[in-house]
């Protein structure tokens, strides 16, 4: 019996064994085993949620502009774009990337103005945010 026939015979005998045991019997290195369904689910999840770091340079406001770029992340899941400023713990969202950016810009401006209107009565987190916003936002001339 040549080597190929031996291999075919042994493969036929082993076909009833689970994949892991077969590989152990052959004394081969065993990689982590996942079913094709699990594998497809992982790939699906990776494709579903993609988070991309980027920056905002334009606050899209007539009254305020950014003095420096604002780091954000953009993620997309189920056709919904979410853009997050982790520095401010603020987010915007929409059905397109542009809508999400516009939403975040409006949220930042509203928060900035509300902080300004309450600047004598701020707790720890709004005080921290105020200092950050004062560094990155300036009034348009």
């Amino acid at each position, binding site marked *: 019996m040549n080597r190929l026939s031996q291999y075919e015979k042994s493969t036929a005998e082993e076909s009833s064994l689970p994949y892991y045991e077969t590989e152990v019997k052959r004394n081969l290195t065993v990689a982590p085993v996942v079913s094709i369904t699990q594998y497809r689910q992982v790939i699906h999840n990776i494709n579903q949620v993609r988070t991309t770091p980027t920056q905002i340079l334009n606050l899209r406001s007539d009254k305020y502009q950014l003095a420096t770029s604002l780091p954000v992340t953009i993620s997309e*899941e189920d056709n*919904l774009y*979410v853009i997050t400023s982790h520095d401010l*713990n*603020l987010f915007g969202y929409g059905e397109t990337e542009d809508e999400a950016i516009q939403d975040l810009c409006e949220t930042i401006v509203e*928060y900035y103005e509300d902080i300004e209107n309450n600047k004598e*009565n701020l*707790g720890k*987190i*709004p005080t921290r945010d105020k200092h950050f916003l004062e560094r990155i936002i300036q009034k348009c001339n």
Partner: protein
Amino acid sequence: MQLKKKEIESVFKKFKFQIKETHHKMAYLFYESKMILKSRLSQGSGNVPGNITDKIRGQLYLNQDQFRDAVQCPLDYDGYITILKEKNIIS
């Protein structure tokens, strides 16, 4: 955790977040006349996507169990203030 917009609004109401009457996106928690926390109102009506619910939960400084309790009622305003004090968000 996907929720209905009404469920999130009821959490804001229970925790006494202030929401302006006109077209606005933000809600604020005031405690002893000080602005303590901000959170974002959800757009539209119906269901709020799970990832947006998670972002709002993060703005409320609640973990998943605490947020579930907030939605399902065991966590009331006083309990929430206690949590914020424990986290040193309110001094």
